[in-house]
């Protein structure tokens, strides 16, 4: 794996994909960028901010988050249309929200969302604290989260998100950037990703 002398410390900047890409488009600088979809990655490529080819390093699928014990007895997407149910989704401008809308539209389910959160974590927290009866998030959000339970969405109705990663033109530590990406797509990286609920690329 990458030698310690190249990468001595890694600084992470976590935020919604759309937030990070907006920041980068407005001139923010970084070495590596990872996105939860390919559309935002494409935006950056078109803007000429990326170097080399972006790679898919993981997949994620959607899952319904419900409070512990699934008090409202949600079993599938159609249950989300139940009248009186408080459902929270991510805003369509967020990849997770876009995917959720896709899945719901394909299944022909009309959901009256109580709120369109600007970050997937917002959906999760609303469900976790009991304000929402259900929400659509990524499986990776649910897997290691003890405060919510998950209701599986069958693959046929699900949307698979492609997680992409790329070195940025503004990178100051190119060697380190490449080394990090290599780690992420390696077997060791896949193990970590799997453990946190992602699917390998």
């Amino acid at each position: 794996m990458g030698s310690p002398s190249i990468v001595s410390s890694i600084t992470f900047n976590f935020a919604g994909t759309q937030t990070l890409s907006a920041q980068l488009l407005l001139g923010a600088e970084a070495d590596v960028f990872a996105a939860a979809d390919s559309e935002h990655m494409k935006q950056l490529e078109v803007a000429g901010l990326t170097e080399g080819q972006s790679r898919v390093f993981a997949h994620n699928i959607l899952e319904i988050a419900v409070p512990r014990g699934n008090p409202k007895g949600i079993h599938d997407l159609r249950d989300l249309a139940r009248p009186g149910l408080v459902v929270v989704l991510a805003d369509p401008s967020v990849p997770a929200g876009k995917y959720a809308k896709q899945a719901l539209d394909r299944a022909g389910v009309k959901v009256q969302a109580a709120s369109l959160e600007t970050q997937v974590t917002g959906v999760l927290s609303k469900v976790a604290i009991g304000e929402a009866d259900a929400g659509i998030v990524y499986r990776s959000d649910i897997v290691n989260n003890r405060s919510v339970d998950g209701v599986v969405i069958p693959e046929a109705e699900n949307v698979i998100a492609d997680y992409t990663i790329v070195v940025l033109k503004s990178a100051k530590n190119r060697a380190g950037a490449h080394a990090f990406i290599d780690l992420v797509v390696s077997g060791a990286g896949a193990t970590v990703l799997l453990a946190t609920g992602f699917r390998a690329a």
Partner: protein
Amino acid sequence: MRRVPAPLIALAGLGLLFFLLPLAGLILRAPWDQAAAGITAPETATALELSLFCSLAATAIALVLGIPLALVLSRMTGKPRKVLRALTTLPMVLPPVVGGVALWLAFGRRGLVGSLLYQAFGLQITFTTAAAVMAETFVAMPFLVIAVEGGIRSLDPRYEEAARALGAGGWMVFARVTLPLLRPAIFSGAVLCWARALGEFGATITFAGNFPGRTQTVPVAVYVALETRPDAAIVLSLILLAVSLAILVGMRDRWLGAL
């Protein structure tokens, strides 16, 4: 200008620049060609209407609850007063998101009061327009309370004494002497309160969420739009700026006094 030492003028200039540059950036970088489309877009109108409704509602609530609160505060003395004062001004120093979380904990479905409401009436406050109004009231009311309390303390107590000596009871003194004399303080407090409510974001998005037409006030709309449609976000920001400026400038001369 009466002799102001040059270093102070320089610092003042820096301060002014610090305020003006972001505004200038907003105005100069605005996509004016898209502005017309942005202004007439239905989402814009919806967000603006909602913002105006919620901020005015919040101000109304602040007036009804805040003026009596200011009166009570001004009549208290010693430790109880210090404590109550600190509590009522806490929302001013609390990060708005923390305020939103606190509102959850009190009025959310599993909150102190919210749980009772939910169990008894099936009422959920979160994600409603009422929640947005509550969030705005929470952060903005302290401005009104402080302004009015200041006004009361600067009132000559002899006016009330004269009124009482003439036979006026508590309510008549309040309605016909105290309140009219407080008009300038109430007005400037209300304007501050309204402005703060209009710009409120953190508590709103945390407690009320985001949904167009219901809880998506202009600041929230700007935030959502910023990532995907920055131009629309800028146009929205400009509209809010223009509305706020128009009202502040229109009010300034005549009634603001202390502001």
